[in-house]
């Protein structure tokens, strides 16, 4: 069992974990964290495939590496946008929930706007 197999299987398990969290966790922030976990597992799969493409002098195929670097930054900006949406929802509608039947409790708008 080599590096590729160990981390490849680990990445597959992380993707499954993240997927479970996204579906089964009721709180939006937990869903965001689980989504990041899922994404990190996908990135690791890229890394494993890149490692298999190693040639003399380069330990890992640079193309998947570059894609992952771009992907990490995009995932971060998506997370930041999701959290900004969540905080705004919390500020205007009380406890943040994705359940459309939940009673919404209007809060006094902190911003007076």
């Amino acid at each position, binding site marked *: 069992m080599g590096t590729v197999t160990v981390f490849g299987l*680990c990445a*597959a398990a992380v993707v*499954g974990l993240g997927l479970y969290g996204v579906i089964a966790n*009721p709180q939006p922030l937990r869903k965001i964290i689980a989504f990041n976990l899922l994404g990190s597992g996908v990135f690791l799969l890229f890394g494993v495939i890149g490692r298999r493409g190693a040639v003399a002098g380069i330990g890992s195929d640079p193309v998947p590496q570059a894609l992952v670097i771009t992907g990490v*930054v*995009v995932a971060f900006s998506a997370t930041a*946008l999701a*959290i900004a949406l969540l905080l705004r929802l919390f500020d205007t509608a009380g406890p943040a929930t994705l359940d459309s039947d939940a009673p919404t409790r209007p809060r006094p708008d902190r911003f007076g706007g």
Partner: protein
Amino acid sequence: MSIATAFEIMLAAVLLGLGIWTIVVRETFSATVGFVAYGLLVALIWVRLDAADVALTEAAIGGGLSGVLLLGAAARLRDAEPMAEAAPGKLLRATAAALSVLTTATLAGTVLLLPDPAPSLAPASVANAWATGLSNPVTNVLMAFRAMDTMLEKVVLVLAIVGVWSLAPDSAWGGRPGPRHRADPYGVLAFLARLLSPVGIVVGIYVFWTGANHPGGAFQGGAILASMWLLATMAGLADAPPVSSRPLRLILVAGSGLFLIVGLAGLLFGAAFLSYAPALAKPLILGIEVAMVLTIATTLGLLLSGAPERSAEPWAP
């Protein structure tokens, strides 16, 4: 089994343990802390996968900046937690578990059955490295061979910041993002910010500059610079600028703008969109990277600060 393999299995096991903890633990705050630790361990895995560039990015952004973002959100949402709805029903959880196991099994099967010999673009990227004059293959891919991805990714950053800013309430439209941090000006945090920021800025620029030939680059350097800015803001030594500021907006579009101009010049005078003349390739790439590192640092910092919450009244320290 070699020592290295044993170490890797242990690393993977601890990572999975942290992942499970992050998903199942009751308190959101604990889940966030678990995720930060997870991000740092993932960086170690990237080192084992011989991808030092990705490891640096993952440690700086996945572990560091994401951690700050999530911890801040968890703290602000904390009083909402007791009111969170009950856990979903057994049926939903069982279905989700079945789906996850199926996905994991499929991916695991794919990993075990990957084709041999593995396809690789590494030889091609080495063979064409002369065209840019840079010797870090990852930077070559990012800035030259797949420059389109990197340019569009800068556009994504701009779109994300537009999205975050448009969540501002009317009263704070165009104002300063995030709460005003007030800290003791002679306290520990302010001391750390004064002492660490200059060092961190030098480190950030170094990581960016060394990216031409060694692991590092604009993303990693930009993330370090953003965290130094954030540290100064948290310590109350600086304030986030109002988002209506024109110099700020120019910096935010500098990376993608310069990239686009150089790309169009390549279309007009060279072979194709985003093609560099070999003689000019290195200075052009470095120029774009300087603009990019500024854009990345500013955008990451502002994304962390969130939507504008205060009017743009002048700031007095």
